[in-house]
């Protein structure tokens, strides 16, 4: 499967095979992370985050690759691991970049770092809150439908609950932002 075919599969939502194929690039990331003070689990988390970033980008119609997908994923992982090592104060040397690595990842990674922390903040919410927010923001269900599904009195109650959940997520997100961690999510 060529890179372009992978991108078009990621774009169409028929992405399972393409994602499985992309895991072929995981061992290289594992070597890089393990050679620089990390564990295999760190590598897996980094790589999965990179896949999510790629998947999100692929769904943007105007995304074009300027290098191979392997290089792109590796570049994301390398940059993020570099940042994590700096944060831990354990590494000052630059990790070696691939020759054709894109050099415009800065803004994307900064934004994704925030999204990653927000994801952690959301995961730390209770099941009910998370379900409500998922239904509202991802499934675009009307508040009245949500209220019926999760046993709330009505649209007003769902609205208030949504506000409280979002406020709680925001509080947790701000706390995480203050810590500034990069690779702490463990998604089994």
């Amino acid at each position, binding site marked *: *499967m060529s890179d372009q*075919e992978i991108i*078009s*599969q990621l774009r*169409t939502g*028929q*992405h*399972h*095979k393409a*994602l*499985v194929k*992309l*895991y072929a690039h*995981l061992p290289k990331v594992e070597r890089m992370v393990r050679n620089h003070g990390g564990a295999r*689990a760190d590598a*897996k988390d980094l790589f*999965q985050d990179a*896949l*999510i970033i790629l*998947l*999100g980008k692929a769904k943007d119609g105007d995304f074009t690759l300027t290098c191979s997908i392997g290089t792109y994923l590796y570049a994301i992982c390398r940059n993020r691991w570099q940042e994590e090592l700096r944060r831990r104060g354990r590494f000052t040397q630059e990790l070696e970049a691939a020759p054709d690595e894109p050099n415009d990842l800065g803004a994307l990674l900064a*934004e*994704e770092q*925030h*999204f*990653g*922390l*927000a*994801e*952690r*903040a*959301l*995961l730390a919410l209770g099941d009910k809150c998370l379900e409500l*927010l*998922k239904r509202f*923001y*991802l499934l675009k269900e009307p508040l009245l439908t949500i209220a019926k599904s999760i046993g709330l009195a009505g649209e007003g109650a769902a*609205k*208030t609950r949504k*506000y409280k959940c*979002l*406020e709680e*997520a*925001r509080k947790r*997100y*701000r706390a995480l932002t203050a810590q500034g961690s990069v690779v702490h999510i*463990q*998604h*089994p």
Partner: protein
Amino acid sequence: MRDELNLMELVDRYLGGELNASEQAAFEERLRTNAELRELVEDQRALHGGMKRLALRPAVNKAYRRYKWGKWAPGIGGAAVIAILAVGGWMQAKEGGRSMEAVSDDSEQVEQLLTLSDTAGTGLPALVMMINPKADTTLITPNGLVVDIPKGAFVDEAGRAITKPVRVTLLEAIDGVDIMKAGLSTTACDTLLETGGMFYLDAQMDGKRVGIDPAKPLTVMVPSDNADPRMMLYEGGMTAEGIVDWRNPKPLAHTLVPVDMSTLDFYPPGYLAKVAELGKDATDKAYTDSLYYSFNGTTERQVMWGADTMGLLEDSAAWGYIPPGETGIEPARIKAIWNTRFNGTNLATREFEERMREIHRLCETKVLDHYVNNLDKNLSELDAQVKHPAFARLAKRNDGRVQLPEHAAHRLRKVYTEWSQRYAETARKTQEEFYRKEAEADQEAHKRQMARQIKDLQQDSERFRQEFTASLRSVYDQLGYPWTPAPPPRAAFVVPVRNPGWWNVDKAVLAATTSRTSMSYTDKKSGKTATLTYTPITVEVASKESFSELRVYLIPKELNSYQRVMEKDGTFTENLNSLFEYDVICMGRKDGQQYAASQWNVGGERTIALTMEPTEDEALKRMIRVSTSVVSGDLLEQARHLEWLEREAKRQQAKQAHYALRNALMAVVFPCWGEGWPVEE
């Protein structure tokens, strides 16, 4: 709180692009001056981003499981183990365990314990992990052993589901070296066993061993290169001498592991490769599905076999028509089962995928029905009932089944029958509709072409009559004959002699007008000579090959008519009658656009060079510039005809491509299409 709630909602609407222009401008103005609001927007934007990541993560996790799975998948179904369940243990793990990976479907984190304090002795490293019993968890060991722990599997002494974290310990001795190093025996009483691997599994909560709910057993899969159907599952028990003795052998139920339907391939073997070879996008499942399912129904096979849809099917035997059913599996039946409704059944397994390939090769619908109608039976049992060497080989693998809830098999059997009939009917109607429409369009096109040709012929006859009359009058004038209009010839090559007058002159003029060559005639009585002069002209059109339709016309200004210049040997050439002044007009079509060029008052030039430009009808009318609406109207009608010809050419092209594609795929979709019994690979 109400204000804050409304503000958050406003921010949601802003981020979702739901504000109208004025609301957005006002909001952005507030943003510019209000730092707190900016912060809120940024936070909510991040939470939206986080939410999107949450939505994408299950796909990434699922792919990871498949990736890990794929590393040892060849051993599934052939797993052969000697196992001891944790009822007393057969060894203890030593200090310093290894980590293993856990895959869980919820977001709970799994705590990894890298050391053990209560192990010693066997030389085998222990794999230990704390798991959340409230979630489905899959453990994958470095040797590729997979332990699937369904949620609620662990129970306490009273049989109640445990909710607190459970520590799972796993020891594995898969190859001979590990088994010997651990000092494990491979005997059952005095019988020496051939081992496919051993594992030990223990689960504890707060230091006490927990039980396993019999209704939710753990599934352990051991990778194995050799699928030996004689392998059995033994439980280990400790003898008085402290040696493990293997007892209570049970046949290994090779439970099938269902996967998501969308990851399976039920197409006939070689279908995707052929689609790709034909230059189509074989990676787009929506397209390949739609193409494959469109082959359902017998209409097309009958048409392509030689009969047609217009009633010749009764005579199909004479064309060598093969009855449906013997050519391959109807795609409607595949569509009925290749559906998420059948997820979690025997059909949603890699094992059935293999059988599906054989069923396609066999071209026997009843074999497919056999598997679909018996979802509550082991695949090996069903394999054995198909009298075919390929299925006999599959039967030996002893593949089991996916456990189904009560009555599910019956419900799904009904679904299969109903859906295959429904899909078959829909496909039949679609195919018949397609061929009916094409046949109608062909007939309509034929009628239209004929009508045009007749009109062209009439128009050219009229043009000829006018030109002949004008030429004859000129010759009469030159010879000093009185002009008495003669009835015109009815056709160019028939010489009419209907008046007693100057038929020799008439004949000479007729011959010159017909052949469009110059003539000179001398009257023997008066000695006067009359001439008619035709001058050759060539019209060159720049990039003429780029036009799908191209026509060149001459418009003699003195006649109420026009003449088409035919292309001969790649050039447009004609002889011009010197009695008239001509305009040349060229019309063509390219990519759905009308093009035209013209030159007025041609005569002296031998070669006219024209460059076509995109031209609308109004500009075309100006180019034609003749006063009579008949000629102008006729030429515009010719322009419309060219437009239709271009569309028709495209339709024909698409039709041919459609036939070529389907013809090329027919033998793949229906492997027994005209080839007799399939050759087994």
